[in-house]
């Protein structure tokens, strides 16, 4: 049981990193990685929303869709549930904790219906995860995203001052760097053979 959870965490952070291995959530990854501080804020927001989305979609999947035989409504229902819930939580945070809202608020609407968020919900169902496993997978997926975007923001801050060929300045060199980071993460592929065999 615990070993399963550890495996899920390692898988979501390193082996199947949402950004660099599954290629989900690329838009916030590229859009909000110019500065380390904003990347960190985005990462925390993604951890929060992914955990929340995993938990709530598990409840709706196993409490509503499966009993009624409405599995084919997954996409619509997930989007509806996640978007509404995040919006609701955003309102509550804005009222109850202005400090937290300042740190998290501007990122929440950007990622509510992001593919990485929807992706984690689908993966949870596909892998037949329990409620706890789903939540852990969501949390670790968010941590993996944070790891990727923070590393990438560090790279981009250096790219800004590096001498780049004129044709590659800006987004092109950023995309190349992201690709190289992804290739680097391929090195984690055989991690499970090391750890569990």
């Amino acid at each position, binding site marked *: 049981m615990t070993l399963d959870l550890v495996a899920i965490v390692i898988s979501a952070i390193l082996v199947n990193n949402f950004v660099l291995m599954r290629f989900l959530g690329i838009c916030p990854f590229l859009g909000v990685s110019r500065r380390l501080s904003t990347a960190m804020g985005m990462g925390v927001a993604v951890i929060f929303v992914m955990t929340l989305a995993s938990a709530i979609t598990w409840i709706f999947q196993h409490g509503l869709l499966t009993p*009624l035989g*409405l599995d084919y*409504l997954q996409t619509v229902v997930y989007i509806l549930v996640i978007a509404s819930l995040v919006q*609701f939580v955003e309102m*509550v945070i804005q*009222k109850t904790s202005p400090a937290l809202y300042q740190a998290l608020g501007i990122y929440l609407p950007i990622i509510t219906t992001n593919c990485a968020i929807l992706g984690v919900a689908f993966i949870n169902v596909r892998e037949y995860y329990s409620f706890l496993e789903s939540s852990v997978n969501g949390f670790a997926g968010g941590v993996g995203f944070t790891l990727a975007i923070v590393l990438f923001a560090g790279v981009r801050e250096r790219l800004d001052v590096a001498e780049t060929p004129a044709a590659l300045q800006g987004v092109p060199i950023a995309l190349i760097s992201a690709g190289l980071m992804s290739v680097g993460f391929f090195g984690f592929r055989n991690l499970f053979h090391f750890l569990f065999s």
Partner: protein
Amino acid sequence: MVAAVITLFVMGLAFGGLLAVAARKFAVDADPRTEAVQAALPGVNCGACGYAGCSAFAEAAARGDARPDGCPAGGPALALQLAAILGKKVEAREREVAQVLCAGSRSEAPDRAVYSGIPDCRAAVLIAGGPKGCTYGCLGLGTCVRVCRFDAMHMNANDLPEVSGDRCTGCTACVKACPRGMIVMAPASRRVHIRCNSRDRGAVVRKVCTVGCIACRLCVKECPREAITFADNLARIDYARCDNCQACVKVCPMHTIGISPERVQARGA
């Protein structure tokens, strides 16, 4: 089919209701002063205040981060208005107006090459420093005129930009746009300006321009208030000391020092 329709309908209704209730219950009152400040601002988003636009400045002003006189485009009248909204006091600060520091049009400072690229100074300067003989002077392609959002600049008959002092709001958009860095801000009451930007030696200036500063220092010696200083082969005027006596204008052998027209009425004063 029916089950799917009912399920989605009920869910949509439930979440819609939840959000509607939450919007009421958790509503946060925005600072009403933000809107009042924004309504008073010019609203052209020129960015001279250093914020991303007029609404960003309004938020900062309501928070207390931006000063009431932080909008250069609005001038002292707006500063007083904002101070009243924000409950703060402002000190009078003299309005600044852009001054073009080059008098060498094509007839005085001829081109050394023909430029037929994009008609923009910022583009022209990239090609071997631009077509003009003087590498410090005005390229005359009117980039400053186009970036002015207040219609305060125009190209005169000699293809040199001219600032209309009454319309200039001091937003510094032209100062930032000029690739030669030859537009500066000067207090509106100062009328004497050394209209040259060349750091070349006198002999070099003479070859490329008939109205450039040749570094003779006559104006420095003549000024009774020691308002003119000299560095990098170029005379510079200290606007804080100048009292518009125009002694320097008479001695300048190149007629580089010019007098801006006297303003009948200062804007917003």
